[in-house]
């Protein structure tokens, strides 16, 4: 079955017809040609498809497009202002927190979403004090970024980049 929906991606409004089986990720990649979010597993297991969905990080391969009519999406492409990169992106470049680059847009969006979660005081599995403010130690950063796999093994540099961007 086909359904028409609207999406705003990186500030641009789009109207499109999707199969009810189409994921938000495929709607962007295959229908709209927006390929900044990557597909690594299609099962919510790798984080490559992460975007900011209505302000929060989300894996778009696990979201059906029809369920997100009217959604506001920001991808890694939208986080940069032309040549000017988002501080997280710049820090990843500075620390070489990427190799093949396939996981990278997901890492970028996840990091931006993660910082907002920490700012709002959301605890993680390694947070000792569940009531106070979150201090973003390396351990906290690594834990909170563990939904984003990187087969090239850039984790150490990704943590270094986020650590610096937080400062």
């Amino acid at each position, binding site marked *: 079955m086909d359904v028409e929906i609207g999406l705003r991606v990186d500030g641009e409004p789009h109207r499109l017809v999707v*199969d009810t*089986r*189409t994921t938000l990720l*495929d709607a962007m*990649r*295959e229908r709209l*040609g927006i*390929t*900044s*979010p*990557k*597909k*690594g*597993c*299609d*099962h919510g*297991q*790798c984080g*490559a498809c992460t975007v900011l969905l209505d302000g929060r990080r989300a894996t778009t391969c696990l979201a059906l497009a029809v369920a997100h009519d009217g959604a506001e999406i920001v*991808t*890694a*492409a939208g*986080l*940069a202002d032309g*040549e000017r*990169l988002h501080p997280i*992106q710049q820090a*990843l*470049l*500075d620390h*070489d927190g*990427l*190799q*093949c*680059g*396939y*996981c*990278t*847009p997901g890492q*970028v969006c996840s990091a931006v979403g993660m910082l907002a979660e920490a700012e709002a005081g959301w605890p993680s599995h*390694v947070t000792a004090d569940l009531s106070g403010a979150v201090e973003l130690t390396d*351990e906290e*950063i*690594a*834990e909170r*970024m*563990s*939904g*984003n*796999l*990187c*087969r*090239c*093994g*850039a*984790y*150490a*540099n*990704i*943590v270094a980049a986020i650590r610096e961007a937080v400062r």
Partner: protein
Amino acid sequence: MTGLIEPKSIGAPLERLEGHAKVTGTAPYAAEHLAADTAHLHPVQATVARGRITGMDTTAAEALDGVLAVLTPGNAPRLAPGDDPELAVLASDEVAYRGQIIAAAVAETTEIARQAADLVRVSYAELPHDVELRADSAGLYAPEVVNPTYPTDTTEGDPDGALAAAAVTVDRTYTTPMEHNNPMEPHATVALWARDTLTLYESTQWPHGVRDTIARLFGLATDQVRVIAPYVGGGFGSKTIHANTVLAAMGARAVPGRPVSFALTRQQMFSLVGYRTPTIQRIRLGAGADGRLTAIAHDVVEQTARLKEFAEQTAVATRSMYAAPNRRTTHRLAALDVPAPTWMRAPGECPGMFALECAMDEMAIACGLDPIEFRVRNEPEIDPETGLPFSSRNLIRCLREGADRFGWRRRDPTPGVRREDGWLLGTGVAASTFPVFRLPGSAATVRRLAGGRYRVQIDAVDIGTGAWTSLAQIAADALDVPPDAVDLRIGDSALPPGSVAGGSSGTTSWGSAIVDAARTFREKFPDPEEGDEAGGATPDNPDLERFAMHAYGAQFAAVRVHADTGEVRVPRMLGVFAAGRIINPRTARSQFIGGMTMGLSMALHEDSVMDVRFGQVANHDFAGYHIASNADVRSIDAIWIEEEDPHVNPMGSKGIGEIGIVGAAAAVANAAYHATGVRVRDLPLTPEKFLR
């Protein structure tokens, strides 16, 4: 070798030239070259491990709205006979392994293609299968050579006699499981067949190889096929060419004029694009009371596919590692009803050095020696295998430098005595090595552009290694210009040929061709003008016959193992490498650390579990097949020592893409023993193995 080029840009930590495109996600990978009229392909895979297809009903699939074609063995184009049975796609009714491609649907959308593939009804005459590797598997045989062309077995002296006479012996069996490469970007092709030319946007480590193979199979001239791969999301050996690329080309031929996209699912990658064979390795070491090795025997049992042979060179590193007068290595294969194994990051060295370096740890302890001192005592002066001098060998410097930085000298060797908050703590070390490979067949051109710039062209490919940047640096120094004066073109088979991005050979092979082209250009055009152009190729290196060439390293790990649960964590890793001149310290460090991280992943998690009843990997996704995540990695660092090696190539560099994984798992396993007193010889180091 004809003189090293003077390093100016070489050695500078240049930022990745394509970095901006990658952090914004605007660098286009294969499947992202989509047009409005792109069709999508989904394969049908065999659901038996061995047998024959007796019937295939495609009626329902063909009747589905939006289906453009259904390909079966009955209607698929006949391919030219080739030497790779894995690529004989839809060529017969025989099923050689579960998951083999037996049909495909091409449709307007991915959803429709997948639904149509599901609607194809298949019946089989099933045959009994064997998919399980055992030390006593039936029909174990010795292959003619092991990958790529090493002798299968070697013997020097009298290992059995020396072992019988040795004052100290170790005789142990180590196993490594089946592991899957799993690059983050699934293998993908966008194929367009138009006016007798075929264009493939391909996720590959070797555009030229794909071009040649596809042209041959489809009976085309090589200039009728173009393979484009500007960005590739990792490969680790799995992105040479497999059946999926052939199928994509077939799909495109079924709908001429329309691009066809075929991106594998993560699950499909567990049966279609290769893996590392499981290994069963018996190692016997003999030593005198003085801690000098008198005998080394390394006997390997591993698997291949009945369909196609791939013989991992698991024991080859052992031939050159340590001085012992009596040595033997053997490889025996079981041909099973499984997909063909293939290269996976450091094939041979990676599993082989896990076994050897754990055995060396056990032997050091048996001799009452520190494991570093034990290795120093057994350092060869010349290559024990070939008798040639080493072009450079700095293993001992790596071990010593690492010992200083890691704090090794304070280490109490007693196992199982350090406890902190319920965790047992330990440290371990292992040696690392990787040979210098140079592949033939690369060529490059240099052309003068306006404004004093140069276009440098070669069909190299960057799979995450940093080749975009390091090749520009090499070209800059060879032309004696700053790197931003170089306009590098790679990743397109329309460019001069490049060898495969594999065997850590890219920089050596491609870089040598670029240097040759630049030298020719500068000789020919002392006062170059716009439009001047010269070409060059990877020259023969006579030193290859005169020296043994390898990179070396030392891997250190600190491990804690939970006393009650057996959980293993790795708070610290340090790698020290000696790999010739480092072209770009920034990207090189990432390569080393990336390899070590994959070694950590191998140590702790990776295990493709074969369901022997059905012949498939049971845990065929990231929920079941665990790879290291960010939280697995804590402090990890890689450094290197200055090494001048004028013999390897004009850059003085050795390959660095694979050595980082070699020995890493052994260092972790040795540290886990030091922590617990429990010697685990079977990877991965899962908790239950420490609970005794």
